[in-house]
């Protein structure tokens, strides 16, 4: 390498120089690539480290955990942390509640938000701008801010300790975001398509149902996916609303490990792993839609 450079500086000929440069560039590229991979691997370890730690913890006993939190399961692998959970009725009840809450809130959300997004994007009517602006104000209210008066509202409506008391607010708080994404998607559909549909005798609602919704499937799927993730993970609202632990969804199930004499940490970590696995599978299956859901809508502008 240095030989070649010395040579070229003494007696520069075009071929030699370009050869040396090329070799140097190739080496550079390899170094950069190695550096990039190194950074990514380090970050991957940082990401996976805690998860692996939790996994190792789930295979030990709480006694081992308390004496030495981080370590390998030296005294045999304790699968019973998992089997105990999987054998308990509470886990499957919670799973059922989670499914009901998730399905209910994301269905309501997508039905109502697609209808509103259609009206806000394709139908002219008085007060359209005002209503849309009121709705987008909702982007500023996370559940946390409104939780206290929401709780009082739910009490007034008699929805406390009912799954509806979780489903309806979850759907409502997701509406502004979903409408914004769907509306911008609907706006991008060319007007000629709508005109053609009307010429062929389609009504406005017919156009919405038979043409707009089918061609908007990617956007709809993206929104639903995001709503499913949100509802599945929701912890605070059910904690506040559902006083009866037979109505709790999965994330709240962790509370059952809080015993009189402290926490059953091995059990908690097994439970955490059991909740992570479906999340990972769901992500792998829906990755494309999650990415569209996050980046769709406004970002394309």
């Amino acid at each position: 390498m240095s030989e070649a450079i010395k040579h070229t500086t003494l007696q520069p000929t075009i071929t030699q120089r370009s050869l040396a440069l090329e070799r140097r560039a190739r080496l550079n590229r390899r170094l950069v690539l190695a550096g990039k991979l190194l950074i990514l691997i380090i970050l991957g370890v940082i990401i996976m480290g805690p998860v692996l730690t939790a996994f190792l913890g789930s295979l030990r006993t709480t006694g081992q955990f308390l004496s030495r939190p981080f370590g390998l399961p030296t005294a045999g692998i304790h699968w019973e942390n998992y089997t105990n959970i999987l054998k308990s009725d509470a886990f499957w009840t919670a799973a059922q509640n989670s499914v009901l809450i998730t399905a209910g809130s994301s269905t309501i959300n997508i039905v109502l938000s697609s209808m509103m997004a259609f009206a806000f994007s394709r139908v002219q009517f008085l007060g359209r701008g005002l209503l849309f602006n009121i709705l987008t104000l909702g982007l500023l209210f996370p559940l946390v801010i409104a939780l206290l008066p929401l709780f009082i509202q739910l009490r007034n409506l008699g929805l406390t300790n009912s799954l509806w008391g979780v489903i309806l607010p979850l759907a409502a708080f997701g509406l502004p975001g979903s409408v914004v994404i769907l509306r911008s998607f609907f706006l991008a559909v060319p007007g000629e398509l709508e005109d053609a549909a009307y010429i062929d005798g389609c009504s406005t609602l017919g156009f919405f149902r038979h043409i707009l919704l089918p061609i908007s499937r990617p956007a709809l799927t993206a929104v639903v996916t995001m709503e499913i993730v949100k509802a599945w993970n929701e912890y605070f609202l059910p904690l506040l609303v559902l006083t009866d632990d037979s109505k709790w969804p999965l994330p709240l199930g962790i509370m059952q490990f809080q015993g009189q004499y402290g926490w059953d940490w091995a059990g908690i970590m097994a439970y955490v792993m059991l909740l992570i696995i479906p999340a990972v599978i769901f992500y792998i299956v829906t990755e494309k839609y999650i990415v569209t859901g996050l980046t769709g809508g406004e970002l394309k502008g």
Partner: protein
Amino acid sequence: MSATNFRVLPGKSSPPLDRTLLRRNVNKALMVVLLVAPGMILFLTFVLVPVVQSARYSLFDWNGFGPPTNYIGFDNYERLYEHTVFRSALKNSFTIMLLSLLVQLPIAMMLALLVGRGSLPGRRFFRALLFIPYVFSEVIVALIWWYVYHPNDGLATKIFTSFGLTPVEWLGDKDVVIYSIFLVLTWKYFGYYMILYMAGLQGVQKDLEEAARVDGANWWQVLTRITLPLMGPTIRLTIYLSVLGSFQQFVVVQTLTRGGNPFNSGHVLATYLYKFGIQRFYMGYGSAVAVVLFLITLIFSLGYQRVVLRRDFTQQSVG
């Protein structure tokens, strides 16, 4: 619609036409109501009305049972201002916000540049790996990290001691706890911003960067003069989302600090609201916290939209 009523009277051929026009208008109004009303009612009932109500509740001394009657004006806000725990919670929220902007977003940007394009082997794998914590539930993330931070020789302590450093009490030291929380939030959320940046990168035309490179710009110049300015809209959007997101943190902080420990130094605004408002049934007082939290996000959001975001989204305004 009133115009159609007048035109019903004269002429012979017009009545059927006008009637269809009227019917069409009524049909359209019905359709709009059908499309918009259910969603709007749901939104008003569970989002807007409760939020507006909390502004009213904040003027009362009220335990949440029966109607609020004991009007006390702005006393709740005064008490908030005087409470040192509230001030530290406010400071912590701002610390998280600043650190997110200064640390989280640049890391996300760097990774997006690494993974977002090009022919890196295992690109998709790394993207998925870095993003996956985002889909974990917050309470799960907090519990995993509670384990990692365990004072009794947890993973974080282990790493510190293996490098010969004095171990830190991650969640037990009141000067450290907020940074430990921030680390967890970064772990969970940087993948989200990375994905947003990756989408933004796709909008950057490669030939512009190529042209700069041909003109002799090095990679840093290409990055700071071409790529980043072209990603302006995305960067501005992530700053917005990051600031709002910082003030809305609750579950991770609540779970990690067990409700603001040690000695109430681990609070952010939302956990403060929960502990001193909801758990103690000081509903008026809690509402005052909610109003402060809301005002911060509202003022920021209006100001930011007006000054910064306006030029990015002007074409999207409603007619």
